[in-house]
């Protein structure tokens, strides 16, 4: 919202300049965050904390990319998890069966995701609202069924077992937990930076316009189908990256990674954190993971507790945490301004 106002306020000549400053500022922030995360193990030597951050990186990339669809474009995808699963299985299989170096497998997995997302997206994005949600869900379950039934390749319901080989490359040894931690942080920060750039680009504003009024967008000459397909594919790539981190972390891939519950959790994370701020999904990821870990430890009825927490957000707050905080802060500031 504030960026938009700033953009309107700026003179036409200043806009490229200002955009560049903002890009530099974002890059600096990203770098600082990465440095802080990378130095964390030096301060806290807890293995649990590192594991937690790696899981946050995997789910955070997935959830934030889903928000590019849900929050920015108004495409409520129920099948985004299929790309998370695709990333995990694609990377895992590539490492197990071909023995190519890690970076090659990484790029190849993203390439496969790109092709699959193009085909599925081309079919899905022309459908409206609830039908879009269901067809994405159907594709997700189709992929899940394929994983279950193609036992010779995927191991069926047992998943990819026997570990994923992680040969060192360029001095990076991903079988070392510390190396994996730093690599996950790097992927997370780079991914968030790129997604933030996408969200703040003119294309990002086109997406918001499509969300708010698709008919109007098409009247002024925007190819809505192409814009939706583009963001669908881009979001799939980031979700796939999250899946790759997950496969590396658990050294395997399981059918649950491609099950609809992953997509449900992604939506839930977004609602928990809030969909109107860029970092909302990240906040939601941290909240959900902490919640899951504590609740599972304390009680057997973890669905019951989680359900009540969800109800609190849906019926009590009626919005995600970040949305709530941002709104509350804006109201407070306005109130103070009026008084002063």
């Amino acid at each position, binding site marked *: 919202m504030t960026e938009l106002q700033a953009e309107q306020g700026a003179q036409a000549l200043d806009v490229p300049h200002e955009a560049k400053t903002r890009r530099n500022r974002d890059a600096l922030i990203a770098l600082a965050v990465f440095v802080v995360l990378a130095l964390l193990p030096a301060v806290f030597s807890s293995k649990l904390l590192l594991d937690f951050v790696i899981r946050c990186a995997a789910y955070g990339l997935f959830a934030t990319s889903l928000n590019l669809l*849900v929050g920015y474009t108004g495409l*409520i995808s129920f099948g985004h998890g299929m790309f998370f699963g695709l990333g995990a299985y694609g990377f895992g299989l590539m490492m197990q069966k071909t023995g190519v170096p890690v970076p090659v497998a990484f790029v190849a997995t993203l390439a496969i995701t790109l092709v699959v997302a193009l085909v599925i997206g081309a*079919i899905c994005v*022309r*459908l*409206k*609202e*609830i*039908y879009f949600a*269901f*067809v994405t*869900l*159907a*594709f997700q*379950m*189709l992929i899940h*069924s*394929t994983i*279950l*039934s193609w*036992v010779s390749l995927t191991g*069926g319901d047992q998943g990819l077992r026997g570990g994923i080989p992680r040969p060192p490359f360029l001095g990076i040894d991903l079988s070392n937990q510390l190396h994996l931690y730093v690599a996950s942080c790097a992927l997370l920060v780079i991914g968030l930076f790129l997604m933030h750039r996408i969200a703040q680009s003119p294309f990002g504003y086109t997406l918001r316009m499509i969300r708010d009024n698709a008919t109007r967008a098409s009247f002024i000459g925007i190819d809505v189908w192409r814009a939706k397909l583009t963001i669908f594919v881009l979001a799939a790539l980031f979700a796939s990256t999250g899946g790759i981190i997950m496969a590396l972390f658990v050294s395997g891939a399981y059918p649950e990674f491609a099950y*609809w519950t992953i997509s*449900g959790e992604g*939506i*839930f994370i977004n*609602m928990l954190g809030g*969909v109107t701020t860029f970092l909302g999904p990240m906040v939601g990821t941290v909240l959900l993971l902490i919640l899951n870990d504590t609740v599972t430890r304390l009680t057997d*009825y*973890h*669905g*019951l507790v*989680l*359900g*009540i927490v*969800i*109800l609190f*957000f*849906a*019926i009590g707050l*009626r919005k995600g945490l970040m949305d709530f905080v941002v709104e509350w802060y804006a109201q407070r500031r306005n109130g103070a301004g009026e008084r002063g």
Partner: protein
Amino acid sequence: MDLDALTGCLASSACLVTQTTSGFIIGMLLFLVAVGLTLIFGVLKVVNFSHGAFYMFGAYFAMTAYQFSGSFALAMLCGAAGTAILGLIFERVFMSRVYGADVLMQLLVCYAFVLIFDDVVRMIWGPEFKSMGMPAAFQVVPLFIAGGVVPPYYLLLIGVALAAAMILGLGLARTRIGKVIRAAAHNPGMVSALGINTGLIYGGVFALGGMLAGLAGALAAPVRSLTPGMGFSVLIESFIVTVIGGMGSILGALIGALLIGMIRSFGSLGFPLFTEGLMYLFMVIVLVSRPTGLFGKEVA
């Protein structure tokens, strides 16, 4: 893949009868769940993600009532009436609070209750598989039709479901209440301006939808095993049914349910591991060629 089994079955009348019957009962149970889902969507414009839980509760209520009374009729009644009350409470206390809000908030409330209901069932009835058992009245010699085996209970199940479909269809088309419900689906503001309590209609429709799902669960209890997560696969399948048939269309739900029943029944012969995949594939094909489903109305 096992295409020989499939072609072998298609060539034998006994197997054909058995598989068609089994396709019919899957389809009829799905229809009862899906028609409630489609009704709730048609009138309230809410996708009730927790609908599978009503199916589950119907089965558990019926099992408990049967264990206490030994009466099959009372078990069916308890399954249906109990879920109707549950549906009414759920709608009035929780769902009605998020009607004005985002669609996502409605989904979230339902998702919360999927989690809560599953755990509640686990608390009350325990996490292990349960079974109601076939009532003595139906433990008789099965019928043989063209060499195929047809248990009499299956006929009862199909009959009850078809009767429910007819009562519902005629009730909506002919009675005054049916007209009011259809009017409320079309234009709730106008109906409310005419002095009709729309809250009551919404609650009633939700209770009716819950009752149909509960009846399906109760009917399924003698032939399926009961477990806390049982509502979920039924929910997903009935979503497929409503989407294939067209959201809000009762006839669509019937046709869609029978198609899915047959796909499941015959698909399990030819593609034992990919039966679910076949359903999703079919749904994708239908939606790609007709985005609003087979009997859905075009939405602007």
